[in-house]
């Protein structure tokens, strides 16, 4: 008796079989929810459990409205009842709860109480609260792009997660792009112990969104089965009919603590605890069934007994189900990449016209868009008339491939990254390229989605691979100062689940980009923007060039010293090597890594064995930079071949100053490399 939507379901008029089916689902969900803490007490598992009790009405409605393999559902960590109502079995719930290998969410890799079934489009989502709203918008974009009218995305979250900025980005995007997504806020009044008045000024957080265009907002009683069912029915129908987003705000109560690590009696008084128990949705539904003679006490008891037996049988299967094996940890870190068979070492002998770095990128992007019609690209400034990206890398693409495949993104890096993750869930053939930010320096707001995306393949045990190439214009030497000079591979290469490449020349840029765009999994593609138009980085580029990941390239052969480098500094190293040769000091080998992850350790070790001296040069800071990883690898594997300590050259441990004198003082250059090389050669 709260929302203003058409009444399709009511205690008196709904078919009895359906009413009893709902009772079965509700009682099953509640039984599993109440059983969960026992597994922790017995040290079996389920060490994270966020009780669903009190959210039963809206969760039943979400689950019942979801159609497997048709719609997409993004449940959150309190959505046990949602997943049961969507059709997941007691066994599947318990396998996840106690983290068994048979867990359909991902074989016990994710935290307990994070129920999912990717096989049905019940997506496996993060614990970062509300983070999946961006993925929901991404799938919504795919549904719209592919013209599917009879499908909807349902994204569920607690009301406090709406305080996260990325939730606003997701809903703003769905509003702007008019995406068929139903966002459900389950409002139980608390974010763990933080009451909602400490989150936002409106008690009903959905009111914060009332100014959003194209967004239909519905309020309902999430504790009431019928109000919830009627509201979700209307929400889904409206989203499909209008092809626009809906926001459902469902008032719930949290009967238990936030989770098993929370003690709600520390901040809720007895009166509150009493009345939330009194408003138990399951008890209310049971009373209604009996009061209106829609079920007899015997019929309900029979269902309850049946559920008890169902849960008992599932429990038996659960505790005897195999655990995941320790050796399986390396499975599904990242998918096998595209096999670059045409150029297995990523080398060529083409002698045609030299192309600039930026031309190589532009032509490869276009070639791959012609090759795969399921390829998309978006980013800030990426397509407006003749402007194609902040540096014009995507020039002419929207004209050739249209606005559905090549389009601008809002100034919201997390949205760019998160919707890439989401859209790639729709279809395994989809390949997405994003300009992650105008400059690498502005990528940091997208970090939570970047990290999230690195988890997906492993967390789902290979069920979902985000097939994304993240391009970032990187590095300094353009007088850009602190916010147009950063090169951030030192931080980003620390994550498993993403490949990191950093070409120095046009041909490698083209070859690595092609391989990235044909591969499954995520690749971080770092572009040294100072080289986009630099003649020194221009090379002939075979039309079909491919560079495999993890294949370094000897850019200059030598005997006396190995310089390991990538990106901008490759060119300085080559200059330094030539000077040393001309001066008759040494014959230096320059090894261009091209890929940082995977790293071509074999090539590094082989070169060090030959020269017995090693120096690592990169533009990023020396302190905690990627060179430390390379140096440690050489020390571990090839220490006995070294005749001198390993040396590292890179940026000072400071930001990059805007003044050119400051910039030059911070960044590495040919002279600094020369000096360091002489020191190591003289050792």
């Amino acid at each position, binding site marked *: *008796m*709260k929302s203003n939507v058409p009444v399709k379901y*009511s*205690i*008196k008029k709904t078919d009895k079989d359906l009413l009893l089916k709902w009772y079965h689902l509700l009682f099953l969900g509640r039984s599993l929810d109440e059983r969960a803490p026992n597994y922790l007490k017995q040290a079996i598992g389920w060490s994270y459990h966020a009780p669903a009790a009190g959210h039963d009405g809206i969760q039943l409605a979400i689950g019942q409205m979801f159609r497997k393999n048709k719609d997409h559902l993004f449940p959150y960590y309190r959505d046990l009842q949602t997943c049961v109502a969507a059709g997941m079995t007691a066994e599947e719930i318990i396998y996840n709860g106690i983290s068994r290998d048979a867990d359909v969410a991902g074989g016990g890799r994710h935290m307990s109480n994070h129920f999912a079934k990717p096989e049905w489009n019940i997506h496996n989502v993060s614990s970062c609260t509300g983070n999946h709203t961006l993925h929901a918008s991404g799938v919504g974009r795919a549904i719209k792009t592919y013209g599917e009218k009879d499908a909807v995305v349902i994204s569920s979250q607690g009301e406090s997660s709406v305080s996260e900025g990325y939730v606003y980005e997701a809903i703003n995007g769905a509003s702007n792009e008019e995406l068929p997504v139903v966002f459900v806020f389950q*409002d139980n009044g608390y974010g763990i112990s933080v009451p909602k008045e400490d989150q936002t000024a*409106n*008690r*009903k957080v959905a*009111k914060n969104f009332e100014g959003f265009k194209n967004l239909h907002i519905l*309020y309902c*009683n999430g504790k*009431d089965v019928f109000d919830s069912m009627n509201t979700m029915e209307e929400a889904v129908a409206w989203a499909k009919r209008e092809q626009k987003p809906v926001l459902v705000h469902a*008032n719930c*109560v949290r009967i238990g603590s936030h989770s098993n690590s929370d003690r709600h009696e520390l901040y809720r008084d007895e009166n509150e605890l009493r009345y939330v128990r*009194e*408003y138990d949705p399951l008890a*209310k539904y049971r*009373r*209604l069934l009996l*009061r*209106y003679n829609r079920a007899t006490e015997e019929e309900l008891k029979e269902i309850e007994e049946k559920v008890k037996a169902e849960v008992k049988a599932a429990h038996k299967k659960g505790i005897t189900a195999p655990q995941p094996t320790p050796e399986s940890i390396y499975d599904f870190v990242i998918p096998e990449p595209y096999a670059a068979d045409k150029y297995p070492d990523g080398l060529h002998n083409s002698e045609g016209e030299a192309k600039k770095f930026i031309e190589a990128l532009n032509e490869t992007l276009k070639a791959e868009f012609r090759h795969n019609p399921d390829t998309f690209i978006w980013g800030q400034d990426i397509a407006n008339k003749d402007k194609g990206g902040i540096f014009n890398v995507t020039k002419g693409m929207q004209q050739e491939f249209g606005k559905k495949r090549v389009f601008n993104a809002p100034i919201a890096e997390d949205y760019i990254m998160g919707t890439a993750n989401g859209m790639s869930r729709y279809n395994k053939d989809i390949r997405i390229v994003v300009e992650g930010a105008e400059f690498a320096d502005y990528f940091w707001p997208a970090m939570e989605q970047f990290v999230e995306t690195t988890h997906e393949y492993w967390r789902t045990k290979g069920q979902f691979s985000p097939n994304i190439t993240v391009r970032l214009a990187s590095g300094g030497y353009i007088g850009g100062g602190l916010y147009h000079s950063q090169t951030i591979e030192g931080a980003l290469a620390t994550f498993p689940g993403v490949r990191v490449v950093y070409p120095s020349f046009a041909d490698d840029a083209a070859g690595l980009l092609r391989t990235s765009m044909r591969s499954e999994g995520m690749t971080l593609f770092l572009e040294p923007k100072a080289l986009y138009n630099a003649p020194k980085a221009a090379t002939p580029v075979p039309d079909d060039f491919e560079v495999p990941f993890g294949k370094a390239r000897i850019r200059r052969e030598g005997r006396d010293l190995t310089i390991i480098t990538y990106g901008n500094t490759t060119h300085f190293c080559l200059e330094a090597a030539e000077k040393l040769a001309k001066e008759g000091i040494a014959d230096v080998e320059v090894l261009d890594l091209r890929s940082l992850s995977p790293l071509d350790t074999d090539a590094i070790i082989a070169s060090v064995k030959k020269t017995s001296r090693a120096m690592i040069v990169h533009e990023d800071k020396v302190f905690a930079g990627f060179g430390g990883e390379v140096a440690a690898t050489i020390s571990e594997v090839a220490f006995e071949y070294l005749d001198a300590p390993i040396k590292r050259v890179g940026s000072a441990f400071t930001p990059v100053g805007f003044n050119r004198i400051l910039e030059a003082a911070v960044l590495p250059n040919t002279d600094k490399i020369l000096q360091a090389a002489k020191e190591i050669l003289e050792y």
Partner: protein
Amino acid sequence: MKKVGIFYSFRSVKTHQQVKKMIKLLGADNCEEVDADVATLEDFKKHDNYIFAVPTWFDGELPNYWDEYLPTIEDESFKGKKFAIFGGGDQKNYPENFVDGVGIMAEFIEERGGKVVGFTSTKGYSYEDSRAERGDQFCGLALDIENQAALSNERIEKWITDIQKEFSKKK
């Protein structure tokens, strides 16, 4: 005149106290108390004039007992019947849905042809939004024990006087 049917939850505390004051003013012989928790269709049918006690719960909801009773009477015609609604709300802590329950009940009654009486002025209250608001009036009596307890007796007395007149009017 038939007895006024006063429907409220006998388990309630604040509402129960308010009802007792109203009965005193109306005269016990003129009233029949009905427990909304267990009310039947017959309880509803035997009256023409009603007082419904509808406090607002949570962020603007009916209490469970009303939610669970209304299906009993939802198919009845309310034509010719008069309803006076009152309910508690908290204008300070729940300003966005102050006495929404009164408004929700009024909508339910009016959709079925019943006449809602006993409108009161919104003057003297401070809130942001209310489903009970009709112009500068509430479609019932708003009582705020949490913040304006001292005004309750006076408000009840005036309201009872008003609804007595309404109940005694011919249809």
